[in-house]
């Protein structure tokens, strides 16, 4: 019933607007079309300047409301992100100036030069000087932006610095898998056809590669050390995902069949960031930024930035994935019986 009334009200509202519009058309015919056209022109001319003023106030108000909710008041949480912020401010300054200048001119001209009997329009077809000015100046300004942009771009797309912490992150529908290389600093080889969750090998690690034996695999939550560059190797098991790290200003696609990389240096621990933002629930989140299916919006990961000591303590609690696949080889457990050890050895050879 309420639906029906709602529809009736909307239809009535439309009818009223329509009747008014029709009536105004009749009135204009009676009054003389030229006269009413001129009146309408004045009204619309006034709206032009009113829209400009209202728009400028709106821009200011919107900024007041929402700027504090962006991540910019606190600044980027990575050393490289700081450069992106600098770049952003340069770009805002340039485009902001152009924005205000051109919008004000547009609506001001529209208002100022509305039809009037007093003045005749100027026959002004071209001016090479003017054209040169507004070809040249944008070209120079854009060159500056390109130079700054590429300087930073090459900085954080270059090879990760030596001593970076290597971590592999793999996306799938709809979650993230994290793999740490263990003490040897090397990630074990993978081949997707070896993937077998039933045998505790959800990532398709090739156990024949000894480098895989100390690799640690966890889901969803990644631990990294503050002030130490992190190099992520990014994989996908099914469709394209994207490792989006808004607080660090970083982002890279996870492409099946083509590993990608990205590195950055976190500069605030999660605890520091909670203080900085005044939000006790603050978390560094990994957001999937590439549409990957119906669960895309819930494909969330977490990064915990902590001190080296905290990180070491965390790592000490983790067990290499190899021992999950082959619990009988785990030195912490009692030695396995001979027969199982043999089959395991055979499996490895295969």
């Amino acid at each position, binding site marked *: 019933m309420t639906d029906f009334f709602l529809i009736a009200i909307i239809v009535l509202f439309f009818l009223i607007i329509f009747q008014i519009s029709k009536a105004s058309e009749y009135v204009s015919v009676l009054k003389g079309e030229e006269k009413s056209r001129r009146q309408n022109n004045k009204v619309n001319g006034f709206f032009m300047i009113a829209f400009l003023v209202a728009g400028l106030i709106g821009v200011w108000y919107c900024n007041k409301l929402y700027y504090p*909710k962006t991540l910019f008041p606190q600044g980027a949480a990575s050393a490289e992100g700081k450069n992106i912020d600098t770049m952003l401010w340069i770009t805002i300054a340039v485009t902001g100036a152009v924005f205000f200048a051109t919008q004000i001119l547009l*609506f001001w001209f529209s208002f100022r030069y509305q039809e009037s009997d007093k003045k005749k329009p100027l026959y002004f077809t071209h001016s090479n000087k003017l054209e040169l000015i507004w070809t040249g100046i944008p070209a120079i300004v854009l060159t500056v932006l390109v130079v700054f*942009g590429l300087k930073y771009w090459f900085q954080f797309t270059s090879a990760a610095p030596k001593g970076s912490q290597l971590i592999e992150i793999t996306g799938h529908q709809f979650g993230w898998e994290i793999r740490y290389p263990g003490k040897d600093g090397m990630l074990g080889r993978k081949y997707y056809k070896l993937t077998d969750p039933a045998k505790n090998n959800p990532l398709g690690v090739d156990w024949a590669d000894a480098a895989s034996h100390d690799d640690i695999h966890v889901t969803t939550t990644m631990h990294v050390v503050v002030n130490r560059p992190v190099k992520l190797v990014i994989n996908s098991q099914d469709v394209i995902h994207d490792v989006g790290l808004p607080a660090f200003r970083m982002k890279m696609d996870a492409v099946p069949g083509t590993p990608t990389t990205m590195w950055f240096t976190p500069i605030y621990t999660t605890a520091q960031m909670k203080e900085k933002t005044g939000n006790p629930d603050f978390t560094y989140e990994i957001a999937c930024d590439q*549409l990957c299916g119906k669960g895309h919006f819930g494909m969330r990961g977490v990064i915990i930035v902590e001190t080296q000591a905290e990180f070491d303590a965390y790592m000490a609690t983790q067990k290499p994935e190899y021992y999950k696949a082959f619990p009988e080889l785990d030195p912490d457990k009692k030695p396995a019986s001979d027969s199982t050890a043999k089959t395991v050895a055979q499996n490895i050879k295969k």
Partner: protein
Amino acid sequence: MNNEEVSHEQSLVVHDLGHAAHVHHHKQSFITKYIFSQDHKIISRQFLITGIIWALIGGLFSVIFRLQLGYPDSTFPFLQDLLGHWAPGGKLDPEFYYALVTMHGTILVFFVLTAGLSGTFANFLIPLQVGARDMASPFLNMLSYWFFFSASIVMFCSLFLQTGPASGGWTIYPPLSALGDAMSGSKTGMDMWLASMGLFIISQLLAGLNYITTILNMRTKGMSMTRLPLTIWSLFFTAVLGVLSFPVLLSAVVLLLFDRHLGTSFFLSDIVIGGKILPNEGGSPILFQHLFWFLGHPEVYIIALPAMGITSEVISVNSRKPIFGYMAMVGSFFAIAALSFMVWAHHMFVTGLNPFLGSFFVLLTLLIAVPSAIKVFNWLTTLWKGSIRFTPGMLFAIGFVSLFISGGLTGIWLGNSSLDIHLHDTYFVVAHFHLVMGVASMFGMFAGVYHWFPKMFGRYMNNTLSYIHFWITIAGAYCIFWPMHYEGLAGMPRRYYDFSNWESFKMFGGLNEFISVVALIVFATQLLFIFNFFYSIFKGRKVTTPNPWGATTLEWTTPIRPGHGNWISEIPEVYRWPYDYGKDGRDFIPQTEPVGENENRH
């Protein structure tokens, strides 16, 4: 023009004269006159009305998914009545949410702003403004509409599939779009999407070749290329872009179909999905993105250029002033068209693209800002010291410039790869492209419809409704898209069904609600336009003068309701450029008036 061409043209005129004379005697049935018509004016109306219907559907979809974004915790029982199992209990299914988003993009980009915009105005204006009786090939022209129509039918049918229409985004990146196991929309829905797109591409190629041929070969006597109105220049470059880039999309469509059904591995490699290990190795999903964006980027200019052309024309007519810097405008059209082929990889900065290669795309992308800036400054100078008449068309043309500035400037942010890393695939991108190519081009289209409606239907649209339409739409568009920049700066990803579980993004709940309410109002306002449009076709105030806006171009030298063939007698000859407004103290001088002895050459 050399002699050969002139004599050819003359024989054509003679032939066409006979043809035109026949028109009034020859009785046409309803079917040949209004359905399978070869008259470019009817075909253009067919494109326009089909485009309006699609815009209504695509707009409605956006309202439905905005309900979800604005009110993620509420249920809307009427949605279940409307959508059945896609909205159980009045709560939109995530899978269908993505289907709606995908269809909204596909419909608006291809069916409304490509077919509806350039299909309408290229068909309508090219013969009328260059001085031709019809297109070079009226039959191919008719075919192009009917291919578009069949593409529409296929796409429309896909909406009713049990597994839903395509839902992997309008960019249909594989593997998501290639594997039915990845998403139910990637089952039959994707096949129908691809089939529809194949038909659509054929339609665009037929149309584009026709437009180019007509502009190059069928100009009336005296209509040199530099005497063409800027609308024609923009439609010319649009057609060239389409003809060169749509075939590349066709190749992507075909290869994707092969991957889906013939077991090839063009785009697939190393995939484990739903517990199944696929045999495909060695393909690259990134290859698809290259093919897609090689069309996709020119495509945004296919959408934007006609709007720019219409805006140039409408602003000049209603400022009663010549367009400022005609040659610079033509040059910047050329520059934009040429550069648009060399910037596609700026959509792919975060795909693992070689950073060195990326740097070239940064440079070329930001270069496009130069011709765009030239255009904006030239429009501003055209307004300067004019005598502006705020016709509905003019309002929308001014609105176009405002939106184009707002959306264009953020292109400088996104084109710079180091900023794109943070802003890519966030609401910042949504705000950017909706302003610069979505809403702005819709404004160009509205400007064109209001301006040429008297020529199309011999009646005027209601002014009061048009003013309401304009002011609510421009204010609404800014209210919707301006705050989205802030969401994007916070890193809020696009294509999310619900943000409430995200610590980083949930603070924008109130804003999302506001945006949804405004979107609803703006959509309702468009219904007002659609009503005004159809009502005025039959009941609008009649046009009584052949040239109601006091314009110089050729279409206003035809009868008020031109028949097939456009001019009753001979096609008029052209003696001057189309922008002699306010020259030597005269309000305007039509293109058909010979240059006087004492007149200054511009």
